[in-house]
């Protein structure tokens, strides 16, 4: 496959301890998958807390989720899926040596990610104003359940950590744009784009579960 | 075997203890036999097959199915026996007889309260009848504790948000020590109590007279007794030593500085408040760790404690 042209390719990216580009690419990708495993179990802990409390107090989740706006949740889902698409397109551009396309797709992704965070910001501030805050300062009376604070603690921990991942993702994309502008990537070397893409898709997948579990309890 | 039991385990004083001990000894004996076998093999091999020259040639023995199956299956059988044995013992331990006599236990940092159906409350003294199943329904007022009577081989954690329980049937009239075994802070290792086993008649007599026995005592004397019985002395000394809480010596009518700077005279009202709502005002330099005694001390008893403190000038 790619070995045929490898002699003509730039090989600056190849670290000395790897035999060839393919070994390096495969190793990086495997490393990223291993990292994604840790991410899944990291969020898994929160999902366990969610499931345990939902099994204990189903009525609490029914009542409290009414405070969350399903419409904006849905919009954010569309935004994230859209950004997953543009990341996939960015990787495709890199694979085809279309550096301009790569940069444009990365910028769109960054834009969508920021949109996501802005919507999240408005959701959070609307709740803060009502007294729905994480922790013992919780003071909202509108949810008639003594453990309402726990639902919102779980909500804030899950969406907060997810939001943190989105912000880290934005940082990574900006770094990729800078690298791309320096002409670092080409069809023979686009490992950072590929593995950042994997990370971004995982952030998307986690949201795909958060959305129905938090917003859509009817 | 008896001498080994005496050395390894405390005396067995409940109906369930013997079955637990039997399993304990079974595992011990089996383990010691296997451990001896392994140790002898190590020592024997290292002597018998010691290196004689640097050119020693060793045979190629890479595996032996029969042997490997043997040493997988035999341990498996042994551990399954242990599991089944432990399991049946456990079922017994968590299933109190229907006619069990119920006592409520409350763990507080750092004392045990025992509430009886008559309304009587004893602190750090559990009184139970002999040869009758007793069921303890337990909860905690603050952090996790664990209720443990080694002589009865029973233990259960005590939680602040739930009730847990354990049961036992004492088989001899004697006293046994009760420990807290879930780490709970500064005086964790002082959170001891005693289980007193009485004959059925004595138990009933005790239960009837418990609340009124000290009616005719001198208040200060009664107060001194209450301070010991309610474990006040775990944290408050009577000789000026600084423990977890302020000492009682010289406390009466002294000016105390609170954490918020307020200065309070330690009069009757202040001491009463400190017993019933200990965290309302905290002395400077101390932590708000005292549990409330509301419900376990009545007015007369509080007065008696105040009388006692008055004597400690």
């Amino acid at each position, binding site marked *: 496959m790619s070995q045929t042209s490898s002699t003509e390719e730039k090989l600056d990216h190849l670290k*000395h301890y790897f035999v060839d580009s393919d*070994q390096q690419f495969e*190793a990086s990708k495997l*490393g990223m998958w*291993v*990292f994604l495993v840790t*991410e899944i179990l*990291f969020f*898994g*802990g929160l999902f*366990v*807390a969610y499931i*345990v409390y939902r099994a204990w107090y189903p009525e609490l989740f029914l009542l409290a989720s009414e405070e969350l706006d399903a419409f904006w949740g849905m919009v954010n889902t569309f935004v994230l899926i859209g950004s997953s698409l543009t990341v996939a397109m960015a990787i495709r551009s890199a694979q085809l040596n279309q550096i301009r396309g790569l940069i444009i797709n990365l910028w769109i992704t960054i834009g969508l990610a920021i949109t996501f965070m802005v919507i999240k910001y408005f959701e959070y501030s609307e709740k803060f104003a009502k007294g729905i805050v*994480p*922790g013992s*300062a919780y003071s909202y009376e509108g949810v008639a359940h003594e453990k309402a*604070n*726990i639902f919102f603690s779980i909500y804030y921990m899950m969406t907060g950590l997810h939001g943190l991942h989105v912000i880290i993702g934005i940082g990574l994309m900006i770094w990729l744009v800078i690298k791309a502008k320096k002409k670092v990537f080409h069809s023979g070397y686009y490992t950072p784009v590929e593995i950042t893409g994997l990370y971004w898709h995982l952030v998307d997948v986690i949201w795909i579960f958060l959305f129905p579990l938090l917003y859509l309890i009817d | 075997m008896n001498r080994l039991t005496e050395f390894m385990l*405390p005396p067995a004083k409940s109906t369930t203890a013997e079955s637990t001990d039997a399993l*304990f000894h079974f*595992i011990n004996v089996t*383990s010691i036999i*296997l*451990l001896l076998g392994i140790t002898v*093999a*190590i020592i024997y091999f*290292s002597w018998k*097959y*010691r*290196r004689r020259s*640097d050119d*020693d040639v*060793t*045979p190629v*023995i*890479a*595996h*032996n199915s029969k042997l490997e199956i043997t*040493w*997988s299956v035999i341990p498996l059988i042994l*551990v*399954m026996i242990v*599991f089944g044995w432990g*399991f*049946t013992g*456990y079922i017994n*331990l968590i299933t109190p007889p229907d006619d069990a006599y119920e006592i409520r236990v409350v763990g507080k940092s750092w004392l045990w309260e025992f509430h009886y159906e008559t309304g009587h409350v004893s602190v750090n003294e559990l009184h139970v009848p002999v040869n009758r199943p007793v069921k303890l329904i337990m909860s905690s007022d*603050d*952090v*996790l504790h*664990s209720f*443990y009577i080694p002589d009865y081989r*029973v*233990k259960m954690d005590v*939680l602040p*948000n739930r009730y847990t329980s354990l049961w036992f049937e004492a088989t001899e009239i004697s006293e046994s020590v009760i*420990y807290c075994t879930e780490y709970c802070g*500064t*005086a964790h*290792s002082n959170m001891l109590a005693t289980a007193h086993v009485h004959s059925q008649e004595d138990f009933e007599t005790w239960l009837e007279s418990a609340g009124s026995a000290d009616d005719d005592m001198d208040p200060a004397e009664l107060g001194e007794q209450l301070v010991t019985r309610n474990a006040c002395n775990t944290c408050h000394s009577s000789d000026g030593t600084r423990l977890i809480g302020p000492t009682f010596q010289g406390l009466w009518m002294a000016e105390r500085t609170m954490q918020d700077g307020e200065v309070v005279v330690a009069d009757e009202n202040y001491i009463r408040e400190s017993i019933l709502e200990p965290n309302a005002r905290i002395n400077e330099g101390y932590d708000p760790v005292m549990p409330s005694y509301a419900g376990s001390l009545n007015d007369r008893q509080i007065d008696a404690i105040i009388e006692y403190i008055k004597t400690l000038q």
Partner: protein
Amino acid sequence: MATNDSTTNVKRLQVRRYKPEENPETHYLNQEKGLWAWLTTVDHKKIGLMYLGAIAFFFFVGGVLALLLRTELLTPARSFMDADVYNQVFTLHGAIMIFFFLIPAGPAVLGNFILPLQLGAKDVAFPRLNLASFYIYVIGAVFTLVAIFTGGVDTGWTFYTPYSATTGGNVMAMTFGVFILGFSSILTGMNFIVTIHKMRAPGITWNKLPLNMWALYATSIIQILATPVLAITLLLLTMERALGIGIFDPALGGDPVLYQHFFWFYSHPAVYIMIVPGFGVISEVISTFSRKIIFGYWAIALSSLAIAFIGFLVWGHHMFTAGQSSLANMVFSFLTFLVGIPTGIKIFNWLATMYKGSIDMKTPMLYAMVFLFLFTLGGFTGIMLGALSVDIHLHDTYYVVAHFHYVMMGGMVMAFLAGLHYWWPKIFGKMYSEFWAKISLGLLFIGFNMTFLPQFVMGAQGMPRRYFNYIDQFQSFHQFSTIGAYVMGVAFVIMAGYMLHSLMKGKPASANPWGSRALEWQTSSPPDLHNFHHTPVVINGPYDYHKPMSEFQLGIATSHNGHGHHDHETVNVPKTEKEQA
């Protein structure tokens, strides 16, 4: 891969023999000079050494704390420190020994140094992440030190809620420090999995992987699957203290037993992060010093994986009295016994390896034997604690303390020291004094048993753990135990002495002083910065002691071509996974 045609599964390589150079002038220790070169190195060997320095420091601190605890326990009442100080000291002893010593000791020190060498690789897959892992460890350590000096921590190393959510001191800095530390462990695990998968030298197929690699592979899997759960647990606990999110705090409506599930989901597998690398070391040492092929290669390799897997299913045996449902208790008890089987299998396989061997009683081998004895004892007492009705009696007593120290100190620390003595000549290129090493080991063995055997008896008699005071009947046991602890202290001082002497004035070590067949011994001592001057080629199993040494020193020139030499020969090498893909 249905086809089994020998032409597709075997490739022909032009190899020649590379005898390792004895006592080379330049090696990894002197190739780059200066402190800065050390601090910024991406070389796995140097990172391993920096980890070694760090864990030696923490082992010293933890050990001194242990001696303080034992000294305080000489008398039933207060001896020389207050209860609050005592509680902080036992918390720190536990937390430091577990998070800062035991967990990195296996993978991050010995694993880092040996793994690429045994695979014939130049480095791990992600050297910069490896260095990052070390600095993350350092940052975690700094947070912990901050916690110690700004109020201390008195929660016990388990940080049980609600006590940890309400007590004074600086619990947040501590839990956050351990949270950070977790990432260093994750990065190590990630690195090892990828390295083992992708960077094996030609010929190292899965059935020629040294058992140490299998052990580290199993360990890495536990690290990446369990550590994230610790991270989220400690993050939730940190938030519990910072904001009062209430998930674990009953005062706010939470459930403390749920915290225990979270905590033990990590912390039980974590004991296998500590002990499984030890199994790897013991396999290497026993085979080398018996100069004999390992018995039951696959049984040992797969039992490591089985332990890693079943180890995830048994966490609830730490909670038999915690108030979890009786159904959960029964399931956990049953699964707990299943872990005993693969562990037993390993012990019997090691014994069978010694049978008809040519046993050389050098220090590492003696350590391995001490390991076998102490770890077996620790294992049997584990069976005792797994039995439900007996555990109800023994839970949270000194019996548990003794059991834990038998498996962790008698098991892991002995295995770690076996590995350290075994690879010492490779790491530093120097020999140590056999005489003093054996004296020290003897004292250690005596001191260890003096310390912890009485604790089994005390525990069975009902002495609860974490007690500052105790009733008088236990005093003689406690005093005996304390004297044992001092004996161990002396043993470690002697060890530090002869190790320092070896570093300064030790006799130079040959490339392969033990006559091992494993790949790390087929390069010079100490190794070159890039491990090998050639690409090693492996055609035999790592324990094929019946084959001549020359067959273990094959390789091809690093320039890939292998042409131009007159003395090379052609051998058939099974393809590794990467080449088959």
